[in-house]
């Protein structure tokens, strides 16, 4: 059968001749190959010290955005959860009480907002679905964790630092400081 790539090699099943049975030429050949590799540049990226540049469309961990006054943008409309093909997002809505105007921009807000990062496929549909520009996919990886629970990100993990009270943190997270 014609192989698809035309790169398949038929296996040579002839008995080995004397030189081949001596192994030495093959050994020397192999050793020359490994030796030559010693002088090749290692393609390693020293990751924590240096990172490879991301493309602008990279979709990493989600963040929940705040407006410029530090209020949460999310109004718990649920469109993101509907749009999610992996059904990774759940939320519970709550009504804004008196005195919480400085916390939530809309009268309804997400009391609980969870994304299961083990389910998430980082497609970015939630970002597109959001009418309030509340959810964004950032440029960071999901860090490793010991338990499954740790991959269920709550609001605490997702919300960006408040630009008013924690400006320094925000700047650090953005890497702009």
């Amino acid at each position, binding site marked *: 059968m014609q192989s698809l790539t035309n790169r398949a090699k038929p296996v040579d099943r002839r008995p080995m001749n004397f030189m081949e049975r001596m192994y030495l030429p093959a050994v020397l050949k192999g050793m020359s190959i*490994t*030796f030559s590799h*010693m002088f090749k540049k*290692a*393609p390693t990226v*020293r990751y924590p010290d240096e990172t490879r540049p991301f493309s602008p469309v990279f979709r990493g961990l989600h963040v929940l955005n705040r407006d410029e006054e530090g209020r949460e943008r999310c109004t718990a409309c649920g469109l993101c959860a509907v749009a999610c093909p992996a059904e990774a997002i759940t939320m519970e809505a709550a009504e804004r009480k008196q005195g919480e105007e400085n916390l939530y921009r809309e009268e309804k807000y997400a009391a609980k907002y969870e994304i299961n990062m083990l389910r998430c496929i980082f497609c970015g549909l939630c970002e597109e679905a959001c009418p309030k520009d509340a959810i964004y996919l950032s440029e960071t990886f999901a860090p490793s964790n010991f338990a499954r629970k740790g991959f269920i990100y709550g609001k605490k993990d997702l919300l960006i630092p408040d630009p008013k009270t924690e400006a320094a943190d925000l700047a650090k997270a953005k890497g702009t400081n």
Partner: protein
Amino acid sequence: MTLLAFDWLYLVEKLVLIAVIISASLLIAMYATYFERKVAAWMQDRIGPDRAGPFGILQPLADGGKLFFKEEIIPNAANKWLFILGPCMAMLTAMMTSAVIPWGSKIDLGGREIALQIADVNIGMLYIFGVVSFGVYGIMIGGWSSNNKFSLMAALRGASQVISYELAMGLSLIALLMLTGSLSLKTIVEQQMSHGNLWNIAYQPLGFFIFFVCALAECNRAPFDLPEAESELNMGYHQEYSSMKLGFYLFAEYINMFISSAIMATLFFGGYDVPFLDESTLNPNIAALIGIAALLAKTFFFIFVFMWIRWTLPRFRYDQLMDIGWKKLIPLALVNMVITAVVVLLRQG
């Protein structure tokens, strides 16, 4: 025996020498582990350990520290004394060989000539054989006392491998002995240094090849690392070991590698001889230092070759291993021996 003489200064000097050589061996073995990982990385287009210290230079210390602080586990069903004796034996036999290797010519310390060799016995090579033949015990005792089938199988494999390759090794060296006519390593080195004599590798290329392959097998290095074949016997004979006892085994392997490289350099590559350099014109101390450096350089080269081979060649099957040992190397060594004997005889008469 010279050891029994009452020259206390002599005793002190020997003790110092022993201490130096042992610590040097340990140091070199330690850094051999580092070097091994580095070489592996280079050959695989990687970088290797580079976190601990600059270029990862402190990695061995970290490893050692880790080994020291790991939990000491002695299995319940193990034979406790032998379980401890095993790694000790491995370490001991690994260290003992260095006693007869001449590390350099003499150095002059305040009018006192100190030979850079612990014991120049006239049965040096036999001594090496004797010690090498004990190398089996470490493996066997460790493997057996673990009371674990995999360990036992690996130990038996290891023992039979070592015994098998010892034969070819001995036979290859007998050919060398015919040329040198002496068992003393010091004499052998001096012969190679003397004028008109090439290094023994020029006379005994085949013998060196056999010796080299056997050295690989004796050190349980790839492609003959059957006793510790991870894929077949889990970890091999030291499967049940942890902490520093495991460290001893690993260390012993690297020390063995170092010593056998040194022996190869001594026997076949002129020892502390520097080619194209007349040592007698130099200050003896400087000459000795240059000699030590030369020997170490040769040794390191062989260590490198050991690693190079390890990271190139796949492991042999067990039957192939035995086949090579008994059916290829021993006949080859015999042929080499006969040819050498004929040549020696012809040249004599």
